[in-house]
């Protein structure tokens, strides 16, 4: 178990280092000289000597691998540098400001998705080929085929424009969260419903279910005590491994609804070429995915003794 864990941590660290390295290289090919970006192109007359001085001050004249090591070292100490577009504002500050919005959004979206998907997924599997099953199939097929940004626009049209119940954009009050939460939840719901249904269908014909039935337990008891509890593990794992997809969804949904979370910070920074922020966020994303996947693995191994013993 501990050997397996060490292996996974080392591999995860490798993935993060690899992604940070690739990001660093990609960001250096990005169009636009950072010195000009910093000064605002053409606004201030400067001589070549001054540019060279600025390059030297920021370490831009040093070889690339040295620049990378300095940057990676700073990241490791938690120093993300300062924004190029909002001069003097530390990137770390910008990220910490945005995280609560993204965390709130995704927390409620996941709660909503789980609360709907798991009961319906179980019902669809137990009553196979019934109306519930058919409806859940249609909903999950549609949920997977619907782009989240279009769903977002349609919800804005209905709930903000015609019914006037909710604000269309922004986060002036907590109501601003409702539509974005629904959009992210819908996408996850579609996937979770499929997974839950599949997991229950795989369990139903198994021996321990037949045993539970034959010892006289009611259908309800068989379902809750034996089937549902065994369904939770694959479902939790899927949620854990979907963190990269969830982040993708957040980036788009926050942009559509103009929510000040890390997704929108990311898109804005890319469009404004603020690559200090972009490269820090890329590493934060990678770190987040790797850590969540690692935790999911650990939970899985901890709960399921078959994995613990075989590794």
């Amino acid at each position: 178990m501990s050997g397996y864990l060490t292996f996974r941590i080392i591999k995860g660290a490798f993935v993060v280092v690899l992604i940070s390295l690739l990001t660093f290289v990609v960001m250096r090919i990005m169009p636009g000289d950072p010195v000009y970006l910093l000064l605002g192109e053409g606004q201030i007359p400067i001589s070549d000597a001054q540019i060279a001085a600025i390059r030297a001050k920021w370490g831009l004249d040093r070889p690339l691998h040295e620049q990378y090591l300095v940057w990676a070292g700073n990241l490791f100490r938690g120093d993300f540098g300062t924004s190029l577009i909002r001069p003097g504002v530390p990137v770390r500050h910008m990220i910490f400001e945005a995280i609560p919005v993204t965390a709130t959004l995704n927390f409620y979206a996941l709660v909503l998705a789980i609360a709907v998907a798991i009961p319906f997924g179980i019902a669809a599997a137990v009553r196979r080929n019934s109306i519930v099953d058919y409806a859940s199939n249609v909903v999950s097929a549609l949920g997977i085929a619907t782009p989240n940004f279009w769903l977002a626009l349609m919800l804005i049209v209905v709930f903000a424009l015609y019914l006037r119940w909710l604000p269309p954009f922004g986060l002036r009050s907590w109501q601003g969260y409702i539509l974005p939460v629904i959009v992210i939840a819908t996408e996850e719901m579609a996937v979770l419903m499929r997974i839950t249904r599949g997991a229950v269908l795989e369990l139903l014909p198994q021996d321990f279910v037949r045993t539970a039935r034959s010892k006289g337990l009611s259908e309800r008891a068989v379902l809750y005590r034996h089937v549902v509890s065994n369904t939770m593990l694959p479902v939790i794992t899927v949620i854990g491994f979907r963190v990269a997809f969830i982040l993708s969804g957040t980036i788009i949904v926050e942009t559509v609804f103009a929510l000040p979370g890390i997704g929108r910070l990311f898109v804005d920074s890319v469009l404004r070429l603020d690559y200090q922020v972009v490269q820090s966020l890329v590493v934060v994303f990678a770190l987040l995915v790797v850590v969540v996947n690692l935790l999911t693995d650990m939970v899985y191994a901890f709960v399921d003794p078959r994995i613990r013993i075989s590794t």
Partner: protein
Amino acid sequence: MSIAPTDPVFTSARDDAPRPSRNKAIARFVANRMALAGLVVVLLLFLMAIFAAQIAPHHPNNDIFRGMRGVGPSVEHPMGFDHLSRDLLSRVIYGTRTALIVGLLSSIISVVIGIIVGALAGYFGGWIDEVLSLLIDALMAFPLIALLIVLAAVLGPSLTTTVVVIGATVWARYARVVRAEVMSLRERDFVTAARALGALDWRIIWKHVVPNVLTSVIVLASLQVGAIIILESALSFLGLGVRPPTATWGGILSDGRAFILRYPHIAIFPGVMIVITVLAFNFIGDGLRDALDPHGRVAKMRK
């Protein structure tokens, strides 16, 4: 000595030995009504893309109707006008081209990369496998949209950029499946036989290994086209995909977002087209999976 069909040698070999015959697979696909409906819709979409110039009632960019800015649907203009007084129906019809071009070309690029990387990793094993697997893991561990946004911004948004960056980033899943299949194929007798005959590694991979993973790749590819079309429209929606004034569904949706409170009808139809297209490709994919792979070897690929 006669060998009974229940002989363990036969039963254990049955799992991986005879592939379903082509006729049976076609029969199974045709019997699947959803898959057949998907196929019909996709064929219609292709016709629409090819003959866009003939079908569209107006030019998507050049026909500007003065005084019709943001006017809603009517009989002559069933989808209404956009914020630049252009006919939306014509723009949506032309948008089919972009969606299908990106869906197909990006799929081809990602399939080729995926097969090459997966076959190399699975066939050679060792440190080659370690390095390539790490790359696959890194790619799959990262939010795809974030990667596409950065790459599109670095390379400058255009149709070519969109095709290339999507193709270059979605191959990890193919590579993972191909790698696993090649690893088990490598141990099979016909590969050993080819090696014993002195065949070179690349020849064994090309002649004996690649043809055997194609079924899984085709099934996975048909399931991925829909996802690629959504990625393309997401990039165009963010202004990092195909450049305006080229008509793309994502691009029209981006106009729709900008004018959502004044001209809400702009945002409706391109989204409907995306949903129909993605559903059609997904149904074909499900049908192909059930037809080519009735035992569900590839079934678990789709998360």
